């Protein structure tokens, strides 16, 4: 019966000796042809603003969600309800201006 600790050690030390995959000769050319389609300038002009926009969008979403939770927990009208109330107040203001 094998001792498991020794067996694991033997498997690991044999696995360490496994030869790595050798890169093909034209590997650098393959990579260069892939990078040719996206230049460093493209990355700066498209990727970064998109990334920032995604962060801002998720921040706004998280802020809305948090305010909704806090408002409903403390008994205030929800964001949707609040917006409706605000719109109603604005329209009634407008009506008084239009029809004196």
């Amino acid at each position, binding site marked *: 019966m094998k001792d498991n600790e020794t067996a694991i050690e*033997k*498997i690991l030390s044999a696995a360490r000796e496994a030869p790595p*995959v050798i890169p093909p000769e034209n590997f650098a050319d393959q*990579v*260069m042809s892939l990078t040719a389609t996206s230049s*460093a300038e493209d990355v700066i002009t498209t990727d970064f603003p998109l990334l920032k926009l995604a962060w801002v969008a998720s921040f706004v979403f998280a802020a809305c969600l948090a305010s909704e939770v806090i408002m409903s927990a403390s008994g205030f009208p929800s964001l949707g309800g609040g917006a409706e109330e605000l719109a109603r107040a604005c329209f009634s203001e407008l009506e008084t201006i239009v029809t004196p």
Partner: protein
Amino acid sequence: MERNSCIGGISLSLKADEDATCVRSILAGRPERFSELVKRYQDRVFAILSRYERDRGRVENMAQDVFVKAWRNLIKFNPRKAPFENWLSRMTTNVALNHLRFEKRFRNQLPVSQLGEGALEWLQEEDDSSPLQAMEAREILDHCMADLTPDEHLILTMSEIEGRTSPEISQITGKAAGTIRVVLHRAKKKLTDNLIRLEGSL
């Protein structure tokens, strides 16, 4: 000895400076110089990835992925934070981790019948002094690591196969050294249990 390590330190620092200069020149409008970095580090990237995947084609695809990612993120590389080699190793490890996550999600554990003859023979032998070939060891290891989480698989490989220390793994993965030790302990325990189960099933 001291003199050698000092010379080694200087050559490492020179290499890091050379890489940083190369990156600056690429960003300044000489993209063709990126091939110098690819040629310099392709062996290292392939060596790391070969620890996580045995299929040649997949390793090649993953290595391409690493270098394309490096290219696209070159603007974020800061030579004052870490040398290019470490930055690229970190990127390579992330690609390996994503690969492990994908594999765990879409692949079931390999049946015992898929183990090669040599691996099966070694497992069935009574004493542990019999020789074990590297590729057979990889087969057994892959089988016994199949139910490890991607993080456990990664940390165990980095520590036991690549021979990295806990602080090094911590630096590359961004996890605390204490967490690394806990994950490593758990992974080794699972590995031993799976080996016992595998031997019992033969």
